[in-house]
């Protein structure tokens, strides 16, 4: 576990597990699919301000929940997403002609 924490000290993987797994579970095992990514992540976080990280987290929540709420505030994101879907499918259509 200590080694896991050392990969990305800014995240403290043990705290992540505490938050995720039920509290009554005593033993937790951790599988990290890409330790090199976790190290890269550590370097990236080292150069990122807390304000940017906080806004990134807020942005992820917005992206996940925008389609589940009906609000003026989130409409620009829904519009952007629909437009993007349109562009991706146009690209696939053009690609299909070759």
């Amino acid at each position, binding site marked *: 576990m200590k080694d896991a924490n050392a990969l990305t000290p800014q995240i403290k993987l043990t705290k992540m597990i505490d938050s995720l797994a039920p509290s009554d579970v005593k033993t937790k095992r951790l599988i990290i699919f890409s330790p090199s990514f976790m190290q890269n992540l550590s370097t990236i976080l080292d150069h990122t301000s807390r304000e940017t990280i906080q*806004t990134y987290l807020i942005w992820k929540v*917005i992206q996940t929940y925008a389609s589940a*709420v009906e609000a003026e505030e*989130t409409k620009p994101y829904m519009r952007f997403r629909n437009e993007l879907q349109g562009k991706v499918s146009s690209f696939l259509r053009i690609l299909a002609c070759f």
Partner: protein
Amino acid sequence: MDRDKIKKDGVKPLLEIIKQITDMFPVNKRHTDEGDLGYTIGYLAKLGVTAFVSLGASADDKDPDVVVVQVTTPDSIGLPAKDYYEDTNIVYVFLEFAIDCYILETYRSCRKKYEETLVQVVNATHPSNAIRNIAHNVVELEKKLASASPDAEDK
């Protein structure tokens, strides 16, 4: 699902989660090594939100008292694919493939619109005087995350 209730609640459910995040991970704290980021990521994972890493928890097949947590790179950083974060030389690509030129131009203007959208929606839910600057930093952060992520074929 009650459509009228969803309409009536408007942006409130979203604002509640955002408040949780700002409480769990306040900006005015000196050190990032206290584990509050890890805790917040775990909390968001429970809500179905992927931030920095993709998390999954399941019971160990050999011992039900053991929980196995898997940490993987996210499938999507924000924009649909890694490619959307690339900074490539358009002129070079135009000489090679006209069709690629269309796509790359789309990636760049797409990122610009993405950043604009970020400014609008985050400012509406969590206003800040520095929103334009922060939004740019968030997209730059996503660019770095995309760069650090394995390609789809290598996953």
